[in-house]
């Protein structure tokens, strides 16, 4: 178990600043996820942590040890970490057992000890019985497990995972993310996980750090924090599909873009005249009547697990969703062209313009 401390880290490639003055602390035994769009520099940060690249400025400490910056430059093989790569990087010329045993072989672990730990690691990832297989005889998910076992076998205090589930199909991805979480909790190791998939991030993290395209950390917090209490529109948008509506304040009331419909809920404490109101499809509750915002259903699509609606209301088009149990109930199902009332169970207000949120995503 070990903590990671990053102070003032900067890195440029070919004149392009990828990371700029980044600070981050990951506690010992924590499962930390770096979430960001592709190209935001999260993989660069990972490579700096692993020691494949050197920072231009700033320091990295793993535990109490300074590993990069301030004159220190500990090579990857001396940082004592495990790493799982996006493309698995399972060595194609070695069997499953040889792949997993390699870190122990390099560390000159005694043969019987090596066998025991190799077998245990293979068992931990559920590959027992496949020790003699070559990687070409394994499925993508199995190769991913080999990579995971290889990273775990030397019992590293820090495990780095670089989008390891990207290349897996949806079912396997779901299964693996719970397994990784379970292993992390069972072994109590510190995990830093890089991904652009907010579902994975939410599922496996104790804390999430959301990065933007410019390599800045926008928010660091628990999954609840970043999902429900986003610090800004970028974080909100990045964590899931959302409706953004440009609102205008007249006195104490907020008006929808049609200039007539009035915001039905509690008014946000914003001083400006313009603001953006955001809500997620599931935040919208549909009713036949009541005192919600009046709207017309423009499109209704049944997607199995949920019912997806496009609704015109207040001069904009909302995306709304209800779960399929309700959708299958004829009393609560809306057809195209029907009128309805919208109530907002959750809402976020930002003082950023809609165009800036959706255009630049920041």
């Amino acid at each position: 178990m070990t903590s990671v401390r990053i102070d003032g880290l900067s890195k440029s490639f070919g004149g392009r600043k990828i990371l700029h003055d980044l600070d981050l602390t990951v506690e010992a035994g924590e499962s930390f996820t770096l979430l960001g769009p592709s190209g935001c520099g999260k993989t660069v940060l990972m490579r700096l942590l692993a020691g494949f690249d050197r920072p231009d400025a700033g320091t990295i400490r793993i535990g109490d040890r300074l590993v990069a910056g301030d004159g220190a430059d500990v090579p990857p093989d001396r940082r004592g970490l495990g790493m799982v790569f996006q493309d698995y990087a399972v060595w194609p010329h070695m069997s499953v057992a040889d792949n997993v045993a390699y870190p122990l072989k390099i560390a000159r672990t005694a043969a019987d000890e090596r066998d025991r730990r190799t077998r245990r690691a293979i068992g931990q990832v559920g590959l027992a019985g496949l020790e003699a297989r070559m990687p070409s005889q394994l499925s993508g998910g199995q190769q991913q497990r080999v990579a995971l076992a290889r990273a775990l076998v030397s019992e590293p205090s820090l495990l780095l995972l670089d989008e390891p589930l990207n290349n897996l199909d949806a079912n396997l991805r779901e299964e693996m993310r719970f397994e990784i979480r379970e292993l992390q909790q069972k072994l109590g190791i510190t995990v830093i996980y890089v991904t652009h998939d907010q579902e994975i991030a939410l599922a496996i993290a104790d804390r999430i750090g959301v990065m933007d395209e410019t390599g800045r950390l926008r928010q660091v917090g628990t999954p609840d924090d970043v999902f429900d209490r986003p610090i800004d529109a970028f974080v909100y948008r990045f964590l899931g599909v959302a409706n953004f509506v440009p609102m205008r304040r007249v006195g104490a009331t907020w008006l929808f873009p049609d200039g007539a419909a009035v915001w039905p809920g509690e008014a946000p404490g914003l001083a400006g005249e313009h603001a953006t109101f955001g809500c997620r499809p599931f935040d919208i509750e549909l009713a036949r009547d009541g005192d919600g915002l009046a709207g017309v259903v423009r499109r209704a699509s049944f997607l199995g697990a949920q019912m997806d609606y496009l609704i015109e209301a207040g001069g904009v088009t909302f995306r709304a969703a209800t779960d399929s149990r309700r959708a299958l109930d004829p009393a609560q199902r809306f057809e195209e062209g029907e009128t309805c009332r919208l109530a907002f169970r959750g809402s976020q207000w930002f003082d950023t313009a809609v165009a800036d949120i959706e255009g630049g995503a920041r």
Partner: protein
Amino acid sequence: MTGSFRFGTPQILFGLAVAILVIFVAVPVLLIFFNALWVNGSLNIADMVKVLSERETYKALINSLILASGVTVTGTIVGTFFAWLVTRTDLPYKGAMKVLFLVPFMLPSFIGALAWKMLLSPRSGYINRFFIETLGFPGPIFDIYTYQGIILVETMYLFPFVFIQVCGALERMDPTLEESARISGADLFTITRKITIPLVAPSILSGALLIMLYSMAHFGTVAMLGIEAGIYNIPTLIYERIHQSAGSFAAIRTGTVLSTVLVIAAALIIWLQNRVLSKGRYQIIAGKSFRPTEIRLRGLRLPLLAFCIAYIGFTIVLPTTTIFLVGGLKTYGLPIAVENMTFDNYHHILFEWDLTRDAIWNSIGLGLAAALITMFAGVIISYVIVKMKVPGKGMLEFLGMLPFSVPGSVIALGVILAWSGKYGVNIYNTIWIILVAYIARYMAFALKANSAALEQVHDSLVEAARASGATMWQALRDIVIPLVRPGMVAAFFLIFLPALRELTVSVLLYGPTTRTIGVAIYTLNEDGETVYAAAMAGVALIIIVTAEVVVKRVFKIEK
């Protein structure tokens, strides 16, 4: 970047790569240009022009051009025709034919030239004698010591360049292109003329330029057949000058000037070829194999099959048989009949005669050594070029690939300039100078094979090893080397096999005890020991073909 410079594995590899390429490739080639352009320490173009305008050098330039153009035209026609025949028609035994048409690639052309000399030399050639003595012709029916003769023999050995390229293109071509023309009402011969040939034109052109490149720099056939009639091309003239004058200044100078011209011509051809290849060739030709519509030959089917068999018999079987039969004659000139045959020649060159025995071991030893050294050097240099992010690696790549465009005679001359004592090391007349030249000559082969293999080794495989606690060196040993081994093996044989039949380089560098197989055959023939030359050529053919077959087998099993 940390300020301190670390001296570790990457720096060692980079240093080695630069050192190998500079010593083996850059220095010899630069010395050629330097000696060609500088006279007494100053740049002197006028003197270069003077050398070029001498009658003999000028003639050699023209001859190289005539021969190369002739071979290119005939080779392209022959290659394209046979390629079309084995890919697009219902010719019987197409598969076997395709393999047979590639056989000339593994046979050394100077041995073929030797055979044709024995068959078609105007006075003593067996075919000519048969026509004059038995059929009562007034004179020889064909004189091989002519431009036509040389072009004919070179064509037999170089047409596969076009054949391979065109076969590949025809096999990969999307058949819908032809089918849509068919639906528009065109018959198959119109389609071939109007659609197929224009579409494969880039492949034909690229193969043609390869033929030109090789023919321009070709030594063996011209030396065997041309010198007798006073036909010199650039490589044979370089050889003649260097040999007659035993390395005098004027000879070396003529050699370097001719070499410079040759290098420029070769560079031009390679540049043209790259342009042809980059011109959207793969847009019309898909990557996968299709089953193209076959043209029915109908009544021409059997005559064309007979023609192919005759061609193969005439260009492969006849010369090869001639070599073995003449090698078994008691004296050259005797009719080929059982009572004139003996195994003594073979016994003599294999077990008694130092000259030929040494030559065989020299060739095998040189081939093995050059292949091993170049293979390992190739891995290091390819690694630096493909995997390391260092400045100047473009220069390394250029240097490594340079020998592709530098003809063998030029490399040999450069090696003479660099390694005969002028710069502290004198290995002239020893086996080492040939080894050095082979390393330079075959470096590009090793780089190609190893680079291709290294491209397949994703960076993350090495990084995964580093993250597992392996040092750079351990990662190279445990991950990179095992994964590029197939590329290394390929490089080894890509070098060993041609080195076995090499003549152009070693003929300029051999000393009294350092003949190679090629040199032994060549000098025996020059000395009039035709029977021994033939016997030696027969032994060489057996060694070469055995090596080729064994290698192909081993590779098949590995796959």
